[in-house]
C-alpha cells in the first residue's frame, strides 16, 4: 500500500507533516531510525502507521507515566482500543490481566523500569515485535538534559528481544546526544532524520525584570496577552500561588502539577484543550502529550534548567502556525534557584560517604539495597529522587564490591553535576546573549542559521502590541438553573 493511501485508511489525517513520511519510510524499509522532529509535528504517527502496516505489536518505551497515559487515552479516543500502558502504578490485577492478553494489543506502552524485570522481558520475547520505539530518546544519553538511568539498559533489552527494528524519537537532541543514543541502543547502522527546531511562528523574548517587579509583570502580561497561554514555574507552590493571584485579578487560570489528584488533572487538562480555561500555571509536568493547537503564549516565570527543556516548552505554542509569543522573565540571581534545584537531584559527597559506610557496617550486599531502604535512606538523608538513582546504580553493578561501586557512583555523580551545571550556564548564556536569540538556539543544536524575520526575537526587536488581546474574554455564565444545566447534559432537543 502506498503511504498516502495508508494514511487515509488507518488514520483521520489527510496529509503528512514535515518529517513524518521520511521517518515512516525509513522504518518500513527496515532501517533503525533516529528521528528528531520538532514538538507538535505528531511524532506518534511515526510508529502508529508502521504498526498498522506490519504484523505484530509496537512496543513503545516511554519515560513519563503521565505521557504514557495521555498517549493511550488519545489512541483510545481516536477509536484504537488495542492500546495498553504497562507501568508500576497499574494495580496488580490489571497488570496480570494485561500481561496475559498482550497478543491482543497493537500498541504496548511500557516504562523502562518494567522492561528491566526479567519476567516481563521474557513475556515480550513471546510476542512478535513489529517495531521497538524509544520515545523521548534523549533520556538515554548521559549528555542529555533529562538522562534516566533506567534508560541506560535499553540497549541490552533490545538485543535480548532479538534486535527488532528500532525507532528513537526525540524533539530536542544535539548531534552529540544523537550519537550517544545510537551507541546506548547498540545500533550499528541507522538512519538519522533531523528537522529544524526552528518555529518561525513563535516570537522569542527574554525580559530582564527586577526581583520585586516580576510578580506584577507576570500579572500584567497574563492579563494583556492574547490567550490561551501557559506559564511555567519550577515550583509547585509558586505555580499555585500565581494561579490564585491571576484568578483574583479576574483571569480564568488554574495550576497544574504532579501533586494534583488524577481526576482534577484530567479536568484541568481537558478544560484547557476545550477552551474553557485560558491560562495554565504549570510545572514541567504539564505539556508533554497535550494536543492543543492554538496556544498563543508561553511565559517562563523561572528559567528552565536547560535549553532543551526551554525549546520543548516554548514549542507548545503556535502549533496551528498562528502568531505566538514566548517570554522568559529573568531577574538577576534566578540561576541560584536553578543551581539549587539541580543539586537537589544528586546526593552530595557527605550523603554518599555516609550511605556507603552505613551499608558496610551492616554488611549490605548491593543486590539487597531495597530491603534496607527504610533503614538507610533516612540516616543518609537521601531524597526520593536521589535514592532512586543510587538504588538503580547498586542493582546495575550488584556483582561488584561495595567499595568499587562507591567509587563509580561518586564519579558518576560528579559527572552529572558538571553536565547539569554546564546546562544552566548554557541557559544563562542564552538569556544574556545580545545577538539574535533564534540564531543562538539553532546554533546550539548544530543547525545552520540564516534567518531574517520580521518578528524574530527581543534582540532583533519587535513590539508586543501585535500579541495583545483584542477583545476581553467574557467569563462563562452559570446563571441558568441546575435543572437546565442537567437537561443540557442529558437531553437533546
Amino acid at each position: 500500500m502506498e503511504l498516502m493511501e495508508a494514511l487515509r485508511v488507518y488514520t483521520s489525517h489527510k496529509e503528512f507533516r514535515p518529517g513524518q513520511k521520511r521517518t515512516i519510510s525509513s522504518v518500513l524499509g527496515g532501517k533503525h531510525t533516529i528521528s528528531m522532529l520538532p514538538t507538535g509535528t505528531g511524532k506518534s504517527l511515526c510508529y502508529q502507521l508502521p504498526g498498522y502496516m506490519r504484523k505484530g505489536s509496537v512496543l513503545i518505551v516511554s519515560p513519563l507515566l503521565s505521557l504514557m497515559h495521555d498517549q493511550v487515552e488519545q489512541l483510545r479516543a481516536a477509536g484504537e482500543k488495542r492500546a495498553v500502558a504497562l507501568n508500576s502504578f497499574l494495580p496488580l490485577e490489571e497488570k496480570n490481566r494485561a500481561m496475559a492478553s498482550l497478543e491482543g494489543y497493537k500498541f504496548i506502552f511500557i516504562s523502562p523500569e518494567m522492561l528491566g524485570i526479567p519476567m516481563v522481558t521474557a513475556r515480550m520475547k513471546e510476542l512478535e515485535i513489529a517495531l521497538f520505539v524509544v520515545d523521548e530518546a534523549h533520556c538515554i544519553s548521559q549528555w542529555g538534559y533529562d538522562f534516566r538511568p533506567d534508560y541506560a539498559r535499553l540497549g541490552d533489552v533490545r538485543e535480548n528481544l532479538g534486535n527488532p527494528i528500532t525507532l528513537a524519537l526525540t524533539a530536542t537532541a544535539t548531534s552529540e546526544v544523537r550519537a550517544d543514543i545510537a551507541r546506548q541502543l547498540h545500533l550499528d547502522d541507522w538512519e538519522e532524520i533531523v528537522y529544524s527546531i526552528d518555529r518561525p511562528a513563535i516570537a522569542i523574548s527574554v525580559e530582564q525584570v527586577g526581583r520585586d517587579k516580576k510578580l506584577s509583570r507576570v500579572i500584567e502580561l497574563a492579563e494583556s496577552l492574547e490567550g490561551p497561554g501557559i506559564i511555567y514555574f519550577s515550583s509547585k507552590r509558586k505555580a499555585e500561588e500565581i494561579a490564585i493571584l491571576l484568578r483574583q485579578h479576574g483571569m480564568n487560570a488554574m495550576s497544574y502539577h504532579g501533586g494534583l489528584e488524577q481526576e482534577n488533572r484530567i479536568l484541568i487538562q481537558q478544560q484547557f484543550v476545550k477552551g474553557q480555561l485560558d491560562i495554565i500555571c504549570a510545572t514541567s509536568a504539564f505539556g508533554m502529550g497535550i494536543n492543543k493547537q492554538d496556544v498563543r503564549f508561553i511565559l517562563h516565570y523561572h528559567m528552565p534548567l536547560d535549553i532543551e527543556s526551554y525549546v520543548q516548552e516554548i514549542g507548545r505554542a503556535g502549533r496551528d502556525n498562528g502568531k505566538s509569543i514566548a517570554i522568559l522573565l529573568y531577574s538577576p540571581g534566578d540561576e541560584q534557584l536553578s543551581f539549587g534545584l539541580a543539586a537537589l537531584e544528586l546526593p552530595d559527597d557527605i550523603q554518599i560517604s555516609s550511605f556507603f559506610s552505613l551499608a558496610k557496617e551492616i554488611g549490605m550486599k548491593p543486590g539487597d539495597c531495597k530491603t534496607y531502604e527504610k533503614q538507610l535512606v533516612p540516616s543518609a538523608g537521601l531524597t526520593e529522587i536521589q535514592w532512586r538513582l543510587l538504588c538503580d546504580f547498586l542493582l546495575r553493578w550488584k556483582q561488584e564490591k561495595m567499595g568499587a561501586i562507591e567509587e563509580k557512583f561518586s564519579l558518576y555523580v560528579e559527572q552529572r553535576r558538571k553536565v547539569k551545571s554546564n546546562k544552566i550556564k548554557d541557559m544563562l548564556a542564552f538569556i544574556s546573549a545580545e545577538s539574535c536569540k533564534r540564531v543562538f538556539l539553532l546554533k546550539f543544536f548544530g543547525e545552520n542559521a540564516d534567518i531574517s524575520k520580521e518578528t524574530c526575537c527581543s534582540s532583533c526587536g519587535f513590539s508586543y502590541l501585535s500579541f495583545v488581546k483584542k477583545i476581553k474574554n467574557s467569563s462563562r455564565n452559570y446563571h441558568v438553573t441546575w435543572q437546565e444545566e442537567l437537561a443540557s447534559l442529558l437531553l437533546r432537543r
Partner: protein
Amino acid sequence: MEITYFEAVLLHCLNRLKGERTIFSLFHLFHGKKSAQTIQDAHFYHLTPFFHSFPEIEREKLIETAIHLQSSGLLILTAADTWMVTKSGKMKADRILKAYPIPQYHDGLKYQHITRVFWERLSLLVQVCSNLLYEQKDYIPIQNRQETLQWVKSFLLHRKEKRRDISERLYRELLYCFERAPALNPTLFILRLTGHQRIGLTPIQAAEVTGMDYFRFQLEFTNLLHFLLKTIEEQGSSLPILSAVSNIGRAAAPFTLSAEKTFSLLNKGYQPDEIAAMRNLKLNTIEDHIVEIALNAPKFDISKYVQRKKEEKIIEAASNTTVRKLKEIRSFVPEASYFEIRLVLARSGQKWN
C-alpha cells in the same frame, strides 16, 4: 477576628470533645480512619457526620489552625495536643454554623466506603451518556480507573433500551431525587459534571464560582452524594439506573477488612481466643474488632461477651461520670475489664444516637 468555615467546624468538634481527647482524634475522624477507637469516639461525642469529612487536611495544618485559634483566644491548651473551646470561641463557631449549618445528609461513617466509587461511576456515566447523545466518540474519559471504565462499559452493554433513553432516564432519576429536597443546592453537583463539549469544574473552581469556602464546598458536595445514596437506599425500585451505579458490592457495614474476617468467624461460632490463634493475632486485636462490630452492626449480640448485670452497672457508672474515660468508669465497676466497658459503651453509644 473573622474565622473560616473550617475553623468553625474545628471549634464545634473540639467543643464536643470537651478536652477529653487530643486533636489527633479529630485528625483521624476527618480522615475517616477505620479504627475501633475513632469509630467509637465518633459515636460517643456525636461526631459521626464528620467521619471522613476532610480527608485532605494535613496533620500539621490542623495543629497550625488550633494554635492560630488559641492565639486569638478562641481555644485554650489544657494538656499536650489538647484544646478546650472558650466562650467566645463557641460564640464565633455557632454564628458561622448558624448561617451555614452542617449539611444534614453527610454521613461518612455509613457511606465513606462507597462514596468515591459511586462518584466515579456516576460522573463517567453522565459523560458517556451525554456524548452518546451527540454521537461524539472522540473524547477523553474523565475517570481513568480501569474498574470504573469497565463497569460503565458493561453496564451500557447490558441495558436493553436505546442509548438515548438511558440518558433520559438518568436525567429523570437525578431530577426526581433532587426535587425531593428543595433545601439542597444541586448546582454544586451539576457544576462538577462533564458532558458533551463541557468539562466539569474541579472542586476549587466550583467553590469559587459559587462563592463558597473550599472546605464547605467539599462537605456540601459530599452531602449531595450521600443524599443520593440515601434516597437510592429508600426508593431503589423506582431508581433502577442509580441503584445499579450505587451497587458497589462491599458489605453495607463499614468494618475494617480485618474486623470483617473476625465477624465472619464469630458467626461460624468460633471464640475470640480461637480466632486470635487461627489468625495469628493478639487477643486484644480481636477484642478491638468485636467493639468495632458492636458499633456498626446494631443486631450484634454482646451478651456472649459481657454479663447482663455487669452491663447495667457499666451503663450506670458511665451515666454518672461526665468524662468518658475508661479508667474513671472502671473505678466504679472494678470487676469489669476494659474490653467489657468499651463493648458496653460501644453498644450504648449506638443507642444514644
